[in-house]
């Protein structure tokens, strides 16, 4: 017997030149929804989108429908269509409408190819679809350049809405570093410019932050400029995506692109004398967690990936308390050191969780050396600021 089934149907027709009409249905065990829209062929843009729920997940799913209008004007041939749909339709309307819309757009793009091929074939009867498509792909626009760290204009600085807080009192030995932050444009998923992150870190009394943009190596010169500009310690790290999940890497200069095998990355980190932390190792799902499907600490401890890392991130600002607690239990079971980091993607996230070291750290080399001692602890920094508490060092 099937445990789950999903069916999607997309149909496209043309009743007048220049426009195609798209109808999509998604029906599975949980949802049943429909989308209708038109595409203007000359601009490849969506017009008149409408949605309909037939069966919903929650009593409030119908709130999604007005937000679908935001997809009007989307270019279905754009390289960034999936990201646009995710950002606008998935987050503001509904992820399932977003899934269906993407399916419909991909189908509509192919349908327009079929329509145009049919016209072209009238002119050239021996034209095959394969030849037509190969020709069409050759004239597609060149992709935009990849944005690199510090290489593009920063977002306009946003004034901080919260009043200046008095930095937290702390033991003179404690040194608090947010080991996991993302800045825009180096990390396209972040909304915070690097200057904003640093200003906020200073404002809340952190001792330093570490930039761990996705598969980006900040240049020493760029970071030195930031340190001088803000009079605040900024360290260099990197969040690298491996076939076994994301890893925070420190003390390695190689610019890893694409998806790397974890074992290969471990060799590179070891050869550079660096340090590797499994980031958010149990980041889970929205509606259920892994323990609900039978995951236990003992089973999780057997993950081969944990034999390759030096530490586990057990306080991550983007996962649930249960997921962080679970990671902590696994780290304890494995006897691995543990760290904390905000995983900041917005200014207000900085310092939610940090790592507390027992000595002052002044540069990247000292950070790696301090990590290698294992003498550090994860810490709920913002929570303590809000309470105005002093941490016993």
């Amino acid at each position, binding site marked *: 017997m099937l445990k789950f089934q*999903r069916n999607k149907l997309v149909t496209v027709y043309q009743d007048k030149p220049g426009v195609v009409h798209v109808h999509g249905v998604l029906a599975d065990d949980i949802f049943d929804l429909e989308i209708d829209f038109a595409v203007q062929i000359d601009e490849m843009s969506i017009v008149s989108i409408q949605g309909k729920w037939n069966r919903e997940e929650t*009593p409030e799913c119908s709130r999604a429908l007005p937000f679908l209008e935001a997809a009007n004007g989307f270019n279905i041939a754009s390289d960034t269509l999936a990201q646009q749909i995710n950002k606008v339709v998935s987050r503001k309307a509904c992820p399932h409408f977003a899934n269906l819309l993407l399916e419909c757009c991909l189908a509509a793009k192919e349908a327009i190819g079929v329509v145009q091929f049919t016209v072209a074939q009238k002119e050239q009867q021996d034209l095959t679809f394969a030849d037509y498509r190969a020709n069409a792909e050759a004239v597609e626009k060149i992709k935009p350049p990849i944005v690199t760290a510090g290489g593009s204009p920063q977002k306009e600085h946003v004034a901080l809405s919260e009043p200046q807080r008095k930095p937290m009192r702390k033991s003179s030995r404690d040194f608090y570093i947010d080991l996991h932050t993302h800045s825009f444009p180096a990390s396209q998923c972040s909304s915070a410019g690097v200057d904003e992150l640093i200003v906020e870190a200073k404002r809340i009394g952190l001792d330093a932050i570490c930039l761990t943009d996705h598969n980006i190596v900040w240049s020493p010169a760029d970071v030195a400029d930031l340190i001088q500009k803000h009079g605040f310690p900024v360290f260099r790290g990197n969040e690298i995506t491996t076939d076994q999940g994301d890893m925070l890497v420190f003390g390695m200069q190689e610019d890893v692109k694409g998806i790397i095998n974890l074992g290969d990355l471990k060799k590179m980190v070891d050869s550079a004398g660096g340090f590797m932390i499994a980031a958010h190792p149990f980041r889970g799902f*929205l509606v259920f967690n892994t323990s609900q499907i039978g995951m236990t600490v003992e089973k999780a401890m057997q993950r081969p990936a944990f034999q390759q890392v030096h530490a586990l991130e057990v306080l991550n600002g983007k996962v649930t308390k249960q997921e962080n607690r679970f990671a902590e239990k696994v780290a304890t079971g494995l006897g691995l050191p543990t760290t904390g980091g905000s995983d900041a993607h917005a200014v207000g996230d900085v310092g939610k969780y940090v790592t507390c070291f027992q000595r002052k750290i002044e540069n990247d080399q000292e950070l790696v050396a301090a990590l290698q001692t294992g003498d550090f602890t994860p810490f709920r920094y913002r929570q303590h600021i809000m309470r105005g508490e002093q941490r016993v060092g």
Partner: protein
Amino acid sequence: MTTILCYSRNRATSIEQVDDQTLISTCSLQDTLTEAVVRIRVQFPELLILSAEGKFIRTAGSDSIPMQAALEKIKGVRIGAGMKKIIRGLISEVTDNAELPYLIEECCHAVILAFTKDALMLAPKGKAKSTAFFKKMVKENIRLYNGCAAFAPGSPLVDGIEI
């Protein structure tokens, strides 16, 4: 007036539980230009892809797609947050075909939805009780907050929840 379709697409994805720790997820696509199927075996609770197989039965292009070589790449990948980036990255090492990663993602997505369905079957009937159920869900997993219109500020499902 007769309006004949110029294009149509059917995509069906299903999950079968074959034993107490193995799922098979199958996604088949049939449209005007393409017919293809991908099947993955997934071990749970790790949600690890144990094996993958597939076939392009019909394509409009002239290039052959190294389906099996590409699918070998995703063995050992864990289904969960961040999987899309990993799958696309690994598949792109073998082929630039756009449909193949989509078929795999749909298989993986269906695995997640199968467990989501189990969790949602606990939701009580009736608007008031159901609202309370989902509100508790948001409190336990704040990632849901503002993740879609139903869980956005102003919705009764997040009423009174502070982040």
